[in-house]
């Protein structure tokens, strides 16, 4: 395993009991250009001061609506994006601005699974070459050993090893997602960011992929950051869930805690907005329907970002940014007037 490759760069002793990944005050801003000169007139505050820990072996779910910054956070966590501010520590090492060989070595520990199984596979490469690419890039195997490895990876994700010679267009969405998962596993990573891995799939196929991800996690002792907008899927697969809104974490708790007793009003309305596939439950549910749309990440509201849609907002919420505070063990929320 790639421990050896990064071990020499460790700045402090990291043990398996420490968080695998720690994100502190992370900011990722994108410039907004305008006019003939394309001058920067502002910034999209995609991720704006996020603190988060991911523990070895767990699945941390990250939910939020489109544009809340969850994918950007996922990409910055594995250094596919360079953060504007803050730090990312992986196994105790600051990886915020590492470069060159050092970054290459880190890439062997991390992988990503993408949402769109149609756009994320090169149509001109065979399945074998798609899965083989990370093996070649990192020089992990050659010749017959490489072929064996590719076949083994296909078997691991539940596909016929003979499919290595075929092209992506010959496969359905669910099968392509399996190929994407095999590619992610090719470097034997410890940490995988799954960015909406099932939202493009048919309902009957989603459960197959969820179960596959769960099986692979226990088999290879993987740590997941599971990004999705569907809270029922996230709650199912995650040990802990972080709720994000306009670039900030609003609440972090175990899935059960979050569902039974949400403390942030946004989490409360998000939960009540998710339909439950049971007419008896649905008919009796009290709905807490939010007014309005998400505010712009270019000019986020002052204070609490959710205050413009929040039914409980008071003056104070516009003046100060609520910090992420503890509500019992393992439960944090950023709200001055939390739900009971």
């Amino acid at each position, binding site marked *: 395993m790639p421990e050896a490759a990064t071990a020499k760069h460790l700045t402090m002793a990291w043990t398996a009991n420490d968080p695998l990944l720690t994100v502190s005050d992370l900011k990722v801003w994108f410039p907004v250009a305008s006019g003939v000169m394309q001058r920067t007139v502002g910034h999209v505050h995609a991720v704006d001061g996020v603190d988060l820990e991911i523990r070895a072996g767990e699945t941390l779910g990250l939910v939020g609506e489109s544009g809340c910054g969850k994918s950007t956070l996922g990409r910055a966590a594995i250094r596919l994006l360079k953060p504007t501010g803050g730090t990312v520590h992986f196994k105790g090492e600051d990886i915020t601005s590492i470069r060159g060989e050092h970054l290459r070595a880190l890439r062997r520990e991390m992988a990503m699974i993408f949402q769109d199984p149609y756009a994320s596979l090169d149509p001109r490469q065979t399945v074998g070459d798609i899965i083989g690419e990370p093996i070649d890039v990192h020089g992990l195997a050659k010749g017959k050993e490489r072929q064996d490895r590719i076949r083994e990876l296909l078997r691991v994700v539940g596909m016929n090893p003979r499919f290595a010679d075929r092209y992506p267009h010959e496969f359905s969405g669910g099968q392509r997602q399996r190929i994407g998962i095999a590619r992610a596993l090719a470097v034997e990573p410890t940490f995988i960011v799954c960015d909406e891995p099932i939202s493009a799939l048919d309902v009957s196929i989603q*459960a197959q992929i969820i179960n596959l991800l769960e099986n692979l996690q226990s088999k290879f002792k993987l740590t997941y950051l599971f990004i999705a907008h569907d809270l029922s899927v996230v709650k*199912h697969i995650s040990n802990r869930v972080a709720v994000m809104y306009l670039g900030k974490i609003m609440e972090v708790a175990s899935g059960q805690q979050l*569902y039974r007793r949400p403390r942030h009003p946004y989490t409360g309305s998000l939960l009540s907005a998710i339909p439950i*596939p*049971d007419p008896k*439950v649905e008919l009796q549910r009290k709905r807490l329907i939010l007014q309005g749309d998400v505010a712009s990440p270019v000019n986020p509201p002052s204070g609490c970002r959710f205050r413009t849609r929040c039914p409980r907002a008071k003056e104070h919420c516009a003046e100060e940014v609520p910090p992420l505070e503890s509500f019992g063990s393992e439960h944090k929320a950023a709200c001055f007037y939390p739900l009971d």
Partner: protein
Amino acid sequence: MTQPLLEVSDLHTVFSTKEGMVKAVDGVSFELHAGETLGIVGESGCGKSVTALSIMRLQRPGRIVGGKVMFKGQDLTRVSEYEMREVRGKEIAMIFQDPMTSLNPVYRVGWQVGEPTRLHGGWDAKKALSSAVTMLARVGIPSAAARAKDYPHQFSGGMRQRAMIAMGLTTTPEVLIADEPTTALDVTIQAQILDLLRDVNREFGTATILITHNLGVVAGMCQRLIVMYAGKIVEAGPTTDVFANPKHPYTWSLLRSIPRLDAERHEPLKPIEGLPPNLVDLPAGCSFHPRCVFKVDRCSRDTPALLQVGDTQRSACWVTQSGTELKGA
């Protein structure tokens, strides 16, 4: 029972493709009664959207090759294009999944929302616009008079879908067909739009056909439900009965394969194995049999018809038709 508002019987719609003939809708029959909300659920390619488009005669390049769509004493599959235009948008309105592409980007929202009343009611521009503004306000667009002057790109996704619903309602149609109206929207916005559709149904008494792949949406919106698979209806019945006691293995398996927000414990999901069928090359017999855990010999030979199973449901399954209960670990 009262006369149905809309009656689809034995509808067949086909598409010619390079690989061969695709029977997108293969003998679909159902009724829609005044004031009700009927759900059509199924996965992509099951024929739910083509069924809706065929009712509106918008199925091209597909062809309706059989069956009837009876609405107010006339068969919509046989009326002239001119007569169809009188029905479309006036008596039966349709809203689509993607509010981004179903509004014209170069016309102001108010003008577009007023179009049905100008075309069908013969209203002048001023009267049409003022009714459009009223309707935009009714569907929850803030400062509707000012926003009516906006172009679609100035609206958010949720607001565009509200505008589409407003446009559909200006002529007070009797039937509203909503094809995946919330699929492109975020969950909190989805909740707003579903709430609006419930209000519309209550206030205007518009009968609604709601097409979706989301079983949760159906559970909260529809009194009756149709489940489609590979161009056919495999199960139909009152929503509460179908969810409590599904009579087709596809429905049964689908309900067990989705994670529920209110699940108490973490239990592994029970996926439906295999892949959705290729419509060009359907398996013999029941199209679901290769993925079915209850299949018997007959399922791979003979195609089951949609028959009454139990008091309120209909199912196209040899197993449940012979009286077997669907049970399993």
